[in-house]
């Protein structure tokens, strides 16, 4: 067997650098805005914070899915996968809502450096969440057709490592954008 888990771990390490660069760009321009919107003037840390909790919870539910897999509890695994997908989708819905609100106020990627760095960073993260959702849906579909009877499955384990990573990135992103602007 090729070592899928090792592959995904190095992949995630490589992706971290990608996100670190986006975060560096955000940090580099933070506080340089001379006119136009900033994080402080345009974001709502509480609403986004609540939607973030859904994403955090999904990390927990995918862990439960993995646990059910190891316990060969096929039904519960499917349930937890479904819950994970729903939680992730709620997060993406929240992000869509936030973006729509900003764009309505004419805060866009081309407005100023805040817009540029904010939309790029959250956009790339959201893109990763969507990719994760697609992969989770494929997993769920396969499970409904009877795959993943346990106790082990590289597919489930690899995607859950990826999902934890996407979650972890969000904690950093939320801290850098929201916590830094409002709670420090």
């Amino acid at each position: 067997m090729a070592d899928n888990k090792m592959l995904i771990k190095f992949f995630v390490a490589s992706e971290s650098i990608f996100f670190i660069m986006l975060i560096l760009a955000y940090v580099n321009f933070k506080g340089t805005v001379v006119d136009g919107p900033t994080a402080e003037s345009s974001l709502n840390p509480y609403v986004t914070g609540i939607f973030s909790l859904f994403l955090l919870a999904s990390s927990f539910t995918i862990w439960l899915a993995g646990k059910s897999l190891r316990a060969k509890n096929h039904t519960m695994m499917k349930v937890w996968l479904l819950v994970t997908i729903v939680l992730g989708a709620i997060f993406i819905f929240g992000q869509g809502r936030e973006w729509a609100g900003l764009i309505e106020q004419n805060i866009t990627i081309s407005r100023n450096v805040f817009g540029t760095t904010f939309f790029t960073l959250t956009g790339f993260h959201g893109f990763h969440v969507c990719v994760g959702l697609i992969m989770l849906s494929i997993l769920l579909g396969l499970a409904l057709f009877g795959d993943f009877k346990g106790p082990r499955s590289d597919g489930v384990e690899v995607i859950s490592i990826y999902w934890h990573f996407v979650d972890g990135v969000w904690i950093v992103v939320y801290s850098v954008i929201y916590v830094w602007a409002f709670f420090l």
Partner: protein
Amino acid sequence: MSRRLPLVPENTEPLPSLKENQGMLAWVSSVDHKQIGLMYLMVTMVFFVVGGLEALLMRIQLSQPEFNFISPEVYNQLFTMHGTTMIFFVVMPFLIGVGVYLVPLMIGARDMAFPRLNALSFWLVVFGGILIYYSFLTQSGAPDMGWFAYSPLSEKPFSLNKGPTYWALGLLATGISSVASGLNNIVTILTMRTPGMTMRRIPLFVWMILVTSFLLIFVIPIIASAFAMMLLDRLLEATFFTPAHGGSAILWQHFFWGFGHPEVYILILPAFGIISEVIPVFSRKPIFGYEFVAGSTVAIGLLSLGVWAHHMFAVGLGDVTNLYFSLASMLIAIPTGVKVLNWVATMWGGKIIFATPMLFATAFIIEFVMGGITGVAIASVPIDWVVTDSYFIVAHFHYVLYGGSMFAIFAGVYYWFPKFTGRMMSETLGKWHFWLTIIGFNMTFFVQHFLGVMGMPRRIYTYQDFPYWGSMNLISTIGAVVLALSVLVFMWNVHVSRKRGKKAGNNPWDAWTLEWAAASPPAVHNFDLVPPVRGRRPLWDLAHPEQPDEPNAKVVD
């Protein structure tokens, strides 16, 4: 994932050919590491010819002062495409490709850990290359902002054409490909070694590929994110790198060189690996100081991450910053020097056989040291301030890239061609190729040191008739023509030897690493039986059971 099953239909002919088997499909659908490796080599050869023609056009334009052969606009496109092609579509994919071919054989594996990912990597390079070259067909022409695409030159108001967009998209595709090969190599080397092949016994080439792969997976994302930002700037009017809208042009420079400097080690470490395989075999001695070669490579890999701003001395980052980057850059000369000493010490007292691979390997040491010396010189801030953006820089990086990477590539092709095809390359043509290269290369680039010191800027399409400038540029152009001839001889050699070369047998050079235990060319499944590995030179141990390299090694089955 069932890597023990044959992944492609068993070839009836030793070397797959377009007409037999399933024709084109056998190539396009292949996930065999050897076939993919060969495809890499063929594609890089095509790009090498294209990039070389671009260079020749530039050299003709520069052959005399105030010459009107090509327009300034086209000249800008030529040097941009030439630099981009040579780096991203010649040296990188060659080294990755030869690694894909050799690594599984050298560690006694059946294939790469992820054969389909391997195929994806290859096709993404092809795709990226096509994307970039397609820009020539657009109305506005190819990118023209130089291979490091400094902002604001690469940004909308200054580059209204689509060239830079194609450029960034194409390189993004190749970047994804490089990360994928890096990941694939790492997992392959860490998990698929045959029993007994410990990390202290893998061939040095494999070590170099491993360190390079780590650089790839940690450094390519830097530029991938910068490309993404540049594309957002160009397509959605984001403002990352546009100073007029609050962005920062210097940020691009940091991001680019944060990738760009480690990149030059991506271009040279596998080349070091080739040299470290060739020199011992043709000196008939084991490598001197294996641990030092491997260890110094790790040191180079780590150091290379912290020296990027030596490309930015002229920016005015401040004395302290410049001082740090200057000293850190000079530090890299130490582990690099260690390797040179290792190679020389390996040759010392050996029974040296100057076959073509060894000729190129020996010349590599000399030319690379030459480029290394000018490199340490320009790591010194005051010297760099004088010669930056002049032909001195052009001379420097061609000594390390051509005299370094390309010489190693030629050494590698002559060395492994018998394994790839089952036939030897012609030694006579090889010697012609070698000497024409030596003459052409030094003639083209040595005078450029003087031109640079005399003040000739790089990236200019013509120059005034200052004393000696015309004659030195003419020398350089004649050298480039000789160099072009040498490449023709090389291609002719590949062409005739592939069909009519002397039969090679499994181990024509009497070498010691595992790839030489496989048939030439290797069967689809590589080995019927992997020889036992009890030391760094398994085939030596096999041939000389009475004096093995590691007499006390435990036997593993």
